[in-house]
């Protein structure tokens, strides 16, 4: 297995937590990985990016060469466009459509979404909505991990222990929110792709997913996750 992943978002959105889960899933499989990130002045509420490379061979550059990323995964729609040149011909763009508008000249969201949908392989999820359904908008990062992580060949069950480890110092409630977010992301991505393949526009596909009642969505997400490889959650929300 070999994968180059660009993780993008805005400082504070928790893309390093996504990286943590992916790295540890790779490690568990005995793979090599390198994961490069930015700190300091480069972070304060600005755009952030992490380069993650996974391979069973030796990995040289910490930075992904342009045109070789298998996945651009972003918790924010504008940020994913910044890394367009990294995408490989067969690569996929998986992004949240929830904007972070902390700059005065944030462009029209429709335009951003339209540009994302021009990539041959793409998937859109509403990170904030799904995070909220899971229990917190802040879990949008785990939603995106669920939405895009399995494209690399991992199962949700491989991410789950690391999601737990990330939040082990918080309450069980927080752990459960993030595990649910993971499952919801996976289901929402699957449904979005099915709708688009069936001929719906991206907006229609997003709307269709968004209209599913939260309780039903959560149940289906849990059932899908269990069917695809065993995800256990504590009872109680």
């Amino acid at each position: 297995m070999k994968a180059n992943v660009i993780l993008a978002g805005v400082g504070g959105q928790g893309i390093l937590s996504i990286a943590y889960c992916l790295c540890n899933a790779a490690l568990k499989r005995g793979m090599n990985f390198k994961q490069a990130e930015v700190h300091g002045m480069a972070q304060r509420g600005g755009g952030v990016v992490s380069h993650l490379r996974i391979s069973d061979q030796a990995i040289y550059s910490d930075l992904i060469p342009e045109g070789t990323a298998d996945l651009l995964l972003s918790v924010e729609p504008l940020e994913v466009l910044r890394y367009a040149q990294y995408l490989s011909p067969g690569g996929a763009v998986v992004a949240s459509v929830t904007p972070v508008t902390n700059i005065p000249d944030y462009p029209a969201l429709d335009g951003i979404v339209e540009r994302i949908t021009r990539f041959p392989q793409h998937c859109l999820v509403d990170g904030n909505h799904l995070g909220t359904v899971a229990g917190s908008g802040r879990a949008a990062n785990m939603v995106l991990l669920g939405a895009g992580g399995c494209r690399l060949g991992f199962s949700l069950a491989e991410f789950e222990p690391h999601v737990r480890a990330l939040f082990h110092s918080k309450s069980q409630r927080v752990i459960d929110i993030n595990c649910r977010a993971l499952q919801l992301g996976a289901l929402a991505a699957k449904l979005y792709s099915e709708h688009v393949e069936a001929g719906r526009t991206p907006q229609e596909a997003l709307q269709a997913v968004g209209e599913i009642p939260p309780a039903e969505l959560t149940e289906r997400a849990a059932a899908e996750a269990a069917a695809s490889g065993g995800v256990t959650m504590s009872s109680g929300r």
Partner: protein
Amino acid sequence: MKTEVLLGDEAVALAAIHAGIRGAFSYPGTPATEILEFVERQARSNNGDAVPVASWSANEKVAYEEALGVSYAGRRALVSMKHVGLNVAADPFVNSALTGAHGGLVLAVADDPGMHSSQNEQDSRFYAQFAKLPAYEPANQQEAYDMTLAAFEDSERHGLPVMVRLVTRLAHSRANVKVREQPVQPNPLGVVAEPKNWTLLPVNARRQFRGLVEKYDALTASADSSPYNDLSLAGKRGIICSGIAYNYVRECLNDDHSLLRISHYPLPAKLIRDLVAHCEEILVVEDGYPYIENEIAGILGSSGAKIRGKRTGDLPATGELNPDLVSAALGVADRERPEPCTDLAGRPPQLCQGCPHTDSYHHIVEALKPYREAVLFSDIGCYTLGALPPYNAIKSCVDMGASIGMARGAALAGVHPSCCAIGDSTFVHSGMTALVGAAETDTNMTVFILDNSTVAMTGGQTTMATGDQLVKLLEGLGVDPDHVKVIEPLSKYHEGNVRIIRREIDHKGLSVVVSKRACIQIKRK
């Protein structure tokens, strides 16, 4: 052997711990901060054992001197800092080459090519050469670990401090690393037997320097046989690469180029000569200044192979390397890729919502509005973001602590009002010394100390003089207590704070206004 997931910074830190250090010393600075943070976390989890000591020092000079004291006592020490921090530590660094090291002393310095979080991209390899000290330049996290362990051994074998040079893309990149199961036995306490070697009166210094020159010549001669420098001769096109540049070369190339891989300085002169004699042309790939390129080609160029690199425009003269720049320089065929989106709105860093600096700048900018000749000098920290919209408040940022000295100089030159904004940690780092002089001569200027009780930009490390302690310190430095004012930067106090500030601006002497409110990030921790 076991496997750990480590940032390049953390690999250095763990190696130092495994080398049995007594203490690690540092001042926060991206991209080196995580080195001491790792030692701190390890020390905390050692069941209250006080060893190794993990110390955030007032500045990098002090950090280096503290490490030097540990070395004097026969024990091992790690000192770490960012590249510009070495400018601050340069005095003890250069002179420690003459005293030598007793217990192993390793300086880990993290350069920032591309200036992700710095005012320049200076290359620390020049410092090692300048001081006549050996240096390692790892390419990856495993080498960062292995070479730091080797550096401690070298330091005791040669009796010299040793540098380990990282760059941002290694410091802040994570990978799996094979590490020792257990640390080595720490050295026992044993102070230097010949204190005259450490007392640099001219009579001693001349002898020590002659000794250093001999040692460095010997190190230069043995560089060719270092296991960390590797020459493989093959085709007529050659590459010299150092540190992380090797990764970019290997990423795009695996053919019959001749390759000289350098990870250990002084430079291996014979290996370089052999490569130059063998090849028709050589590309020099290094992340930082064209240090190796200059050494080889200098003013006269090379009499053998044609040398290409940053000086010839084959690689950019500024900014960090990446695999795409290197593959272009090597003439590797371009890959298909989407067009970059060059029209996107930028998303620069900014102050957090609720940051006390926002209110401080609101008060200060309002207060200064009637004074059209006012200049607000500033310094390094989160508050440097006050240069950007919507604040547009500060008019300079040069180096740690510069704001106070510059404000004094400008005041003496006739600027009025001459003001500066500096953080509490930056103040202790190197603002205090400038304030002493301003107080002694009661220069007509106003100093704003933005006291948020932390070192915020680098992640919230502890600061030394905050709150009441800071006020006492100001009075101790000679500032007139009647002109030390403490305000709380909040919008509800805006009018009152503006009045206080204007009174101090109008005072024809030194005033210090402390704008005190805790960083909201540390409140969240």
